[in-house]
């Protein structure tokens, strides 16, 4: 509602005006000043030293460092300032409308759930505590497993994986153990997936040593075809790893047939539920015949994403795969909860201890606050939001949604700016940079691009109609500007943290550096490199 006072100062423009903070902030290792300290630990008093000796001497020789760790040396205030500045140079769900992170969009994580996870009764627990002293958190884990069983239809769920991809890895490991138990591990060395499925399916199965067979989308429907699947399956098929809806937001309505074809060939069917937000409380893995499934607790159940802290995944399996679940499982004996380590056929551990307990608390709180009806409403609102957004977005000049013309999508859409690029020679990396100038985020697609000039939007249930309209206004402003003044878009960003980045380095193994040590090794000139640089 507009108050008279707000009216008096005039309406705010849409899209809103924005300027990102810009600090030219060095990375933390470059802040290091030899001798600087954040905490000065007082010298041991003589009396204590005389009585107990040096604390370092109490440590076994094997755990004592010979050289100090290579950490930046800084004062506390510099550390605080550094990270506060970095936080001002990012975008995220707490400061902007984050629907542009399609397929990875973060829904809003209610802050009250954060307070549960940070409560001393959770935060101060140690995984080595005796299980009689951690009955409360074991009870939460046990109940969360039951909730996820109900949501997926599966018989048991493990909460151990520390991320969505780790959950896929866990499923692949269980698939291998299952075939090994039948003497078919050697023979079944192929995993089938699809071009628009979550790419972690291919990545995890490949890492596990499987040959990956990728089904391509039908040029009209965008769906993988049954004919292609039939051409792919054989006695070598270990499993189908498939996402539904795929990252195009298109639902595969033949999914039960896909599962049947794979089962007939002796393979297992594994449902990647990274996109579960659109089917929560509506469709279950079990009813489509799947043997395994996994959830990203961060995407669907409102816990932090892996990059923003420890992630969390969950795998669901049918009875036949229960023996292979990671160890330990949480069991209830009467009114007590215990950890069962006696699981001889288990694939073992995929994460130390029991997974990310704080995230399990967040997910549990989120599910319990919504209830069964609330979960379904989440999916319905997410789908409604997505189709409302698609209607508005497709009115923008130069933008289209390839495949499945005239059909509604589930919870996300992969759009194409090819029309605009052909008309104006403005491309998606220009558009992405210009969206930053409006405080918006832009994500394209996984490489290599199947949809030309791609953009993926996923509005989830968290964003209001006003938010969606604001995001559309940003996209529309950029598109119209591309037609009227393409140079301004091409030279963007103008109001962001940094100017254009040459991202061609990212696809070059000789150049990329994901750690400071790798950066020094690959990019230092002799003068910059320290002579005692540690080897990798």
């Amino acid at each position, binding site marked *: 509602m507009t108050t008279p006072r707000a009216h008096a100062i005039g309406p705010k423009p849409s899209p809103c005006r924005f300027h990102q903070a810009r600090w030219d902030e060095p990375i933390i290792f470059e802040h290091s000043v030899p001798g600087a300290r954040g905490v000065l630990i007082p010298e041991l008093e003589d009396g204590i030293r005389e009585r107990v000796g040096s604390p370092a001497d109490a440590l076994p020789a094997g755990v004592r460092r010979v050289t100090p760790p290579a950490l930046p040396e800084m004062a506390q205030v510099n550390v605080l300032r550094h990270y506060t500045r970095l936080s001002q140079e990012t975008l995220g769900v707490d400061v902007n409308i984050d629907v542009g992170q399609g397929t990875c969009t973060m829904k809003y994580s209610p802050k009250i759930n954060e307070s549960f996870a940070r409560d001393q009764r959770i935060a101060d627990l140690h995984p080595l505590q005796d299980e009689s002293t951690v009955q409360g958190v074991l009870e939460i884990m046990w109940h969360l497993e039951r909730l996820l069983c109900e949501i997926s239809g599966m018989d048991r769920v493990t909460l151990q994986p520390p991320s969505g991809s780790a959950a896929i890895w866990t499923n692949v490991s269980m698939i291998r153990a299952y075939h090994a138990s039948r003497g078919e591990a050697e023979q079944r060395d192929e995993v089938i997936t699809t071009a628009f499925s979550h790419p972690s399916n291919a990545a995890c199965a490949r890492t596990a040593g499987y040959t990956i067979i990728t*089904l*391509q989308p039908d040029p009209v429907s965008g769906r993988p075809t049954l004919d292609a699947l039939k051409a792919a399956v054989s006695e070598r098929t270990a499993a189908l790893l498939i996402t539904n809806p795929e990252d195009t937001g298109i639902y595969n309505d033949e999914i039960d047939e896909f599962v049947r074809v794979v089962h007939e060939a002796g393979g297992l069917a594994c449902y990647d539920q990274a996109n579960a937000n659109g089917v929560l409380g509506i469709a279950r893995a079990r009813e489509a015949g799947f043997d395994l499934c996994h959830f990203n607790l961060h995407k669907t159940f409102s816990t932090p994403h892996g990059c923003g802290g420890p992630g969390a995944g969950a795998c669901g399996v049918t009875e036949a795969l229960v023996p292979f679940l990671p160890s330990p499982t949480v069991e209830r004996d009467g009114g007590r909860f215990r950890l069962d380590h006696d699981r001889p056929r288990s694939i073992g551990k995929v994460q130390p201890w029991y997974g990310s307990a704080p995230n399990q608390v967040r997910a549990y709180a989120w599910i319990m606050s919504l209830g069964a009806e609330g979960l379904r409403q989440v999916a319905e609102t997410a789908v409604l939001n997505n189709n409302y957004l698609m209607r508005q977005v497709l009115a923008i000049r130069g933008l289209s949604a390839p495949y499945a013309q005239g059909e509604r999508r589930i919870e996300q859409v992969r759009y194409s700016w090819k029309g605009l690029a052909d008309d104006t020679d403005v491309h998606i990396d220009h558009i992405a940079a210009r969206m930053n100038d409006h405080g918006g985020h832009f994500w394209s697609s996984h490489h290599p691009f199947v949809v030309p000039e791609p953009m993926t939007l996923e509005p989830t249930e968290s964003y209001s109609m006003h938010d969606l309209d604001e995001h559309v206004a940003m996209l529309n402003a950029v598109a119209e500007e591309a037609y009227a003044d393409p140079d301004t878009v091409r030279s963007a960003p103008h109001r962001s943290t940094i100017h254009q980045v040459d991202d061609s380095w990212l696809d070059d193994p000789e150049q990329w550096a994901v750690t400071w040590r790798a950066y020094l090794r690959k990019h230092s000139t002799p003068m910059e490199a320290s002579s005692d640089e540690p080897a990798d």
Partner: protein
Amino acid sequence: MPDRPSQDVLRLGLIVNPIAGLGGRVGLKGTDGAGMAERALDLGAEPRAAARAATALRRLAEAWPAGQAPPMLICGAGEMGASAAVAASWPHEALGERRTRTTADDTRRLAVALAESVDLLLFAGGDGTARDICEIVTDHLPVLGIPAGVKIQSAVFATSPGAAGEVAARYLATSARRTVEREVLDLDEEAYRAGHVRPRLHGSMRVPRGPRLQSRKSPAPAGDAAAMASIAAEVEGLLEPGRRYILGPGTTTRALALRLGLEKTLVGIDAFEVEADGPRLLIRDAAEADLRDIVRDGPSSIVITPIGGQGFLFGRGNQPISPEVIRVVGRESIIVLATPGKVAELAGRPLLVDTGDETLDRELAGHIRVISGRGERAIVRIESA
């Protein structure tokens, strides 16, 4: 690693093929062949290559970092470069004499003059121009095409004239200049005028690495070269002793030969046999009769990669692999290679075959496993063209 040491003053070469693109608007589908340019001009075609080169130069100037000395431009006289430089207000040094009518020989002569003295050679034209330049320049000279011709099949072109300027600026303005090998393709224009698309691989050139290159929707995650090396490693593991392998044209199949220590022709068809002590080259640049002899004598396979954006597998640029050869080898022994980028570019469209034998084309149709990397396959459909 920089491919070429940088000098104090950067030197940018420019060749404009004035007759490129003339055939397009008047429906001639290209100006290759004697008399075609004149015919196009008679039909009212307007030269546009110089204007497109000027657009590239203007964008290059816009994208050039402030405070850094701009490159010195060396170009052909008159319509072969100087007029574009004047239109873009770019100081330049013109080589050669101004001519009213130019031919492929003029392009080649200018390329010879520029080849040893510039840091990057821009050229405005089409696939025919790219072919002419490819005949002259060696691997050492980075080249970038400004699309101005009717046919643009080659991956050595930027996506648009402006994009060429952007890519050139980005490449020249950085100290660590990196290039990537790209294929030069051309269509048989006679056939194209009759409505047939027949891409043929003519060679390769090095172009600046990065986005905005023709026929590439995106860089493959690990880069094309890494993807090809990954495919080569996979195929090496599948080779059988005693079997003969026919290698089709292309950089992807050549990467396999490189891994095996064999010297393969880029555009020709070669064959090798896996012997007890390793692979041995049987023939380079084979003719159809050679291939028939090779496949007659024992188990053999064809290793092939689609050429051009349309996804042609057989019948375009690899005709020596005739219907007879394919029949002897058998469909199950055809090994198709394609980088993930190439598979993505198909976007679910089929691979096309046009062997000249319709029955065989029908027999080849259906799904096939394409090797796209180490432990990676894509299921792709083959269809009769």
